[in-house]
């Protein structure tokens, strides 16, 4: 473009000039944009990166010099991880809490998704009186902060239900590992409104002709649900599964109240918050501990990011 051939008239040159200027300006613009976005991305990544580097540095190094000195004086150890994962007593034992996190998370993801998909199907494709009202009621329950449910729900687990002095439902009386059941129950309750809402969005958008022709062929609702709907909503189920997984794995409040603080039931987050409170200066434990708790959701997130984003968008944009 820089050398316009003499055979081309002046008119072309006139149009080429602003074009070139615009292109240069655009390139400059996009260069500043790139620069700014790189700076922002760095700002967002450096805190995590610093903690990650620190978790592999020896204790006395962490406590006396900044993590950036690692690059001039690299010293590497796995001692922090060994200590925080396996040592007994009050200093770590995170391996045990890691198993708790797993035991809490798996059923807490499965139950609400299964129940919510059943409910969402009924609300979308079964004709019955008052279904709009039920849907609106479930939708509206999203706004009840779970803080409102904590005190009574704990009481329900510990003393059961009594009406006018008569024991209607017994106390659960759970000890040690059995307390997982309380956490599963609580997480299932709290997850349902959002899960039903999201899945309803997906299921109600399935083509109606598909359902109708199945109905005409004499298929019952359970059969349609199992053979047609379930396979079609697998991506949505995955999205909500990831959502719920991150939410339960990262939760502190529900576990703090329903799991008890011991190493029989408390998940990683509870233990980590405790370490941050009582051993706030033991950075070798905190850095390694934080990474133990981060690593599983990070793997899940990175490998299934696409589904997760899709679920997020279905929930927030389509409304």
């Amino acid at each position, binding site marked *: 473009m820089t050398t316009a051939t003499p055979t081309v008239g002046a008119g072309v040159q006139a149009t080429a000039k602003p074009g070139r200027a615009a292109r240069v300006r655009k390139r400059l613009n*996009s260069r500043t*944009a790139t620069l*700014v976005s790189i700076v*922002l991305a760095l700002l*967002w*990544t450096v*805190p*995590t990166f610093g903690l990650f580097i620190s978790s592999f540095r020896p204790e006395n190094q962490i*406590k*006396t010099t900044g993590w*950036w000195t690692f690059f001039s004086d690299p010293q590497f150890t796995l001692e922090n991880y*060994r200590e925080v994962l*396996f040592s*007994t007593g009050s200093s770590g034992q995170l391996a045990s809490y890691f*198993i708790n996190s797993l035991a809490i998370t*798996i*059923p807490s993801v*499965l*139950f609400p998704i299964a129940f919510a998909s*059943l*409910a969402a199907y009924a609300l979308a494709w*079964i*004709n*019955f009186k008052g279904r709009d009202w*039920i849907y609106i009621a479930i939708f*509206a329950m999203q*706004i009840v902060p779970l*803080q*409102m*449910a904590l*005190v*009574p729900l704990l009481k329900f687990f510990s003393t059961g239900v009594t009406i006018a002095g008569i024991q209607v439902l017994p106390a659960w009386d759970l000890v*040690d590992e059995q307390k*997982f059941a309380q956490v599963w129950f609580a997480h299932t*309750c*709290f997850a*349902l409104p959002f899960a*039903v809402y999201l899945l309803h969005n997906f299921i109600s958008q399935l083509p109606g002709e598909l359902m109708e022709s199945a109905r005409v062929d004499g298929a*019952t*609702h*359970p059969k349609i649900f199992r053979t047609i709907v379930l396979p079609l909503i697998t991506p949505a189920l995955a999205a909500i599964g990831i959502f719920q997984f991150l939410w339960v794995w*990262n939760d*502190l409040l529900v576990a703090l*109240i329903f799991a008890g603080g011991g190493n029989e039931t408390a998940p990683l987050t509870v233990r*980590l918050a405790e370490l*941050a*409170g009582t051993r706030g200066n033991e*950075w070798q434990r905190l*850095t390694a501990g934080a990474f133990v*708790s*981060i690593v599983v*959701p990070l793997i899940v*997130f*990175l490998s299934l*990011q696409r589904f997760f*984003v899709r679920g*997020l968008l279905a929930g*927030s*944009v389509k*409304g």
Partner: protein
Amino acid sequence: MEFDFAAEQPKFLMLMYGLIAFVAVVGGLLLLLDVVPTWFARRREERLVAAVASGAPLPRRRKPREGAIAIFFLLPTLLFLAVGLVVPAIRTTLLSFMDKDSSNWVGLANYAWMFSEDSIVRVLINSLIWVLLVPLVATAFGLIYAVLVDKARFESVAKSLIFLPMAISFVGAAIIWKFVYAYRGDGDQIGLLNQIVVSLGGEPKQWLLESPLNTLLLIVIMIWIQAGFAMVVLSAAIKAIPADIVEAARLDGVSPWQMFWQITMPSIRPAVIVVVVTLSIATLKVFDIVRTATNGNYDTSVIANEMYNQAFRYGEPGQGSALAVFLFVLVIPIVIYQIRNLRQQREG
């Protein structure tokens, strides 16, 4: 240092019970759903056959009752919601009008306490600062970033970096940032922030102890986590703007600035509202960050954290419940606004 794997076995056993319960409940329900309609269908058929045999007029073919089936589909959800949310929410509201033993009615005393106690008023003010700053800054940041990286060469990597904190627990995030804010006497600093301050010639500070600065520093953590959510949603909205509108504007020679305010912003307004509303609700309920970073000390507590303290640490369920109800009241208008917006969007 030994890790006793045998001691962990009861947990796996419990997990297995949980999974068995899951299979039993869901499998049982599906089985029930299959058996019940078949049984109804057979009975209808039998009645029909009997009617034909006896020569009586055929019973009118009624529409199969779908309600009965729907109840089974909805049963677990409604049961869990009733036990886990509806009844507790009503009870909490009642508790908020009772004394600390939950036995005597005290009217509005707990609410009066909430607005008269200096430390609690401070908590309410802090929550207000949180809910004003987090949604606005996180949304603004998400928007700027989404516009900047839109159609850039490494867009997906660039977006993943910002989105990544979403996967980190609030507890983990609080620890990450506590490390940035760490303070180390006069010697070498180990916290990045103090190191920057020192290298610029300033004095290192105990950031998390200084009110009201510490509240702002905790807010930074929440913004750091949530900006990725805002960015992803807004980026999708930007990509959904019809290409011909953008092209037409470009032909008219609008500047990027005009393009942003006259084309992009109006087109993604609904998505911006959704993001702001979602973030506001999440921010009102924030608990983990405050608890992990400062435990609510040094004037940093927020409503959700104070509610936990009152109800579960100080044995004041009445006052804790009042705080929970207040939280609920704060969320209601935000949600009503969102529902109205959604409605307009559908109609429009």
